[in-house]
């Protein structure tokens, strides 16, 4: 593979000039990070759908996963593909843009317009790269809270998200409890397990082992650690699926050939698929952001912030919770969701929990899953009734 130069010059740099709405926070509005560092100035890029009602009681904040972005229900400006949760968000969908004001913000440390390692450090005029401070899930949530403040919204009707997005939902519910009327943590955990940290470390080491990474200064050097990042993505992608799903999709099928080539070509369909996933990912994601965001997930341990007792994180919570897991998700298995549910129960919180049967693995939360749509619709509609929001007549009474 020849060394590729930094992004197509005709292509807009979404990290620096996002095609989203952006809330800018100046030097006088710093973001205090969990590490003790101060980030200022900073910006948060977001998309908004639907309309905020007069008493500002119908806002839903959706939190995206590790390599997701704010383009939840519109064509993605980088990939040209549809939004990542269009099954769930839109007119008449469970997160109904006809009834709710839906916000999705690019997380702190990412690369789609919110301040992150690819953003320019005002001190040097160059990308932050590894000078960007290590951020945490709590920092991401605090940044979102400032955006919600700026939009003049006091209480969010719902905060929802899967995977790393689910971690943000839990953090919102724990540290901004009174501002969260209902919460949907999906396919997530209250702490990152040793196995998950281990997978992330493999990914980071793959990026760092690429000579084009240049100790993180690849943007200055005019290179990109594409091979390393692609390997990281390939390894991670396996964890998002399940053995059954891989078997069902690919089995041992050969890729456009009748017999093995006795070489290291991508003989198997599954190899070809993973290579494609790796290539597609490097086109759209910043390698340093990948390092920072995986780190944020590794550090997440909600119980630790509360003397090791998860139930204390939710003490006195008035939030209505709906926890969802998937049977074949081995990255964030059902037992992680059950731990959240048990803690919520112990705290006396209002909680529903659904484990959805599927062979699609962790990625199931992004797919068109009828049970997920039904559960979400039921939960959101009943929460809307409790909040005094209108519910379409056709399903006013289930």
């Amino acid at each position, binding site marked *: 593979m020849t060394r590729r130069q930094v992004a197509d010059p005709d292509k807009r740099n979404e990290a620096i000039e996002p095609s989203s709405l952006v809330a800018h926070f100046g030097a006088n509005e710093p973001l205090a990070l969990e590490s003790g560092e101060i980030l200022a100035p900073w910006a948060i890029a977001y998309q908004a759908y639907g309309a905020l009602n007069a008493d500002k009681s119908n806002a839903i904040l959706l939190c995206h996963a590790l390599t997701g972005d704010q383009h939840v229900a519109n064509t993605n400006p980088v990939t040209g593909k549809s939004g990542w949760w269009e099954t769930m968000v839109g007119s008449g969908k469970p997160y109904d843009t006809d009834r709710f004001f839906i916000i999705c913000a690019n997380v702190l440390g990412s690369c789609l317009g919110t301040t992150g390692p690819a953003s320019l450090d005002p001190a040097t005029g160059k990308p932050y790269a590894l000078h960007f401070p290590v951020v945490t899930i709590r920092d991401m949530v605090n940044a979102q809270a400032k955006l919600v403040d700026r939009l003049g919204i006091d209480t969010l009707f719902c905060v929802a998200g899967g995977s790393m997005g689910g971690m943000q939902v839990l953090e919102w519910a724990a540290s901004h409890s009174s501002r969260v009327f209902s919460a949907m943590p999906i396919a997530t955990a209250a702490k990152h397990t040793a196995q998950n940290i281990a997978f992330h470390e493999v990914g980071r080491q793959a990026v760092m082992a690429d000579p084009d990474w240049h100790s993180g200064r690849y943007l200055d050097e005019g290179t990109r650690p594409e091979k390393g990042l692609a390997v990281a993505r390939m390894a991670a992608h396996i964890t998002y699926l399940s053995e059954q799903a891989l078997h069902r999709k690919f089995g041992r099928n050969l890729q456009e050939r009748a017999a093995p080539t006795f070489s290291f070509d991508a003989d198997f369909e599954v190899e070809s698929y993973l290579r494609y996933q790796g290539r597609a990912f490097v086109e759209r994601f910043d390698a340093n952001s990948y390092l920072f965001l995986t780190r944020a997930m590794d550090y997440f341990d909600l119980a630790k912030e509360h003397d090791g007792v998860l139930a204390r994180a939710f003490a006195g919570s008035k939030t*209505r919770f*709906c926890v969802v897991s998937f049977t074949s998700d081995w990255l964030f298995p059902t037992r992680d969701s*059950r731990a959240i*549910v*048990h803690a919520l*129960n*112990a705290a*006396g919180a*209002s*909680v*529903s*929990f*659904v*484990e*959805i*049967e599927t062979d699609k693995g962790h990625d199931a939360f992004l797919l068109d899953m009828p*049970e997920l749509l*039904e*559960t979400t*619709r*039921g*939960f959101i*509609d*009943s*929460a809307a*009734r*409790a909040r005094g929001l209108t519910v379409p007549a056709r399903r006013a009474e*289930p």
Partner: protein
Amino acid sequence: MSPLEMHADAAYARVDLLNLVSMVEPGSRVLDVGCGDGSLLRLLAEKRGVDARGIELSQSGVNLCVAKGLSVIQGDADTDLVYYPDGSFDYVILSQTLQAMRQPRLVMEHMLRIGRRAIVSFPNFGHWKIRLQLLTTGRMPVTKNLSYSWYETPNIHFCTINDFIALADEMGAVIEQASALDRFGRPVEMTLPRRMWNLFGEQAVFVLSGQ
């Protein structure tokens, strides 16, 4: 197993549920173990204004409950009650589910630990028709309300009213209230002394408390 699945006759099931509802104080906190499609929880919320929570094994049941705005957790009563803190509910209800538990006694112990009171309703295997069927046919009884054959029944721990009273005594639980219903869903205590319930009650409801 929900009451509605147990009883083909929905009206009968409804009488059973209303009987349970009448035993719950308004405004209390209630956990329904094996809450099925949420019919009982919904009645409790509507008629008694309770803070209604549930546990249900089936995904379809949980989905129906969530759609009704009920707080229901997908889980197994045999294994998940252990995670509920002591005294966190006013009532823990087990409606027509005791006989399907792997460890009925353990489940009842947890109910009495979690709730100030436990309400248990169950089909009475000591009913005269069931006794007669076993006596005359020599085969495991199959009735309209207990319609499974022995090899496929989810009801693995049948008991009679007398068995239940004996277990409650053994556990040191106090029977605060009891009621038996005939096959039309009418309370038999109106016409019969308690020692006759075991013959004529098709099902029974007990309200227990710990000591």
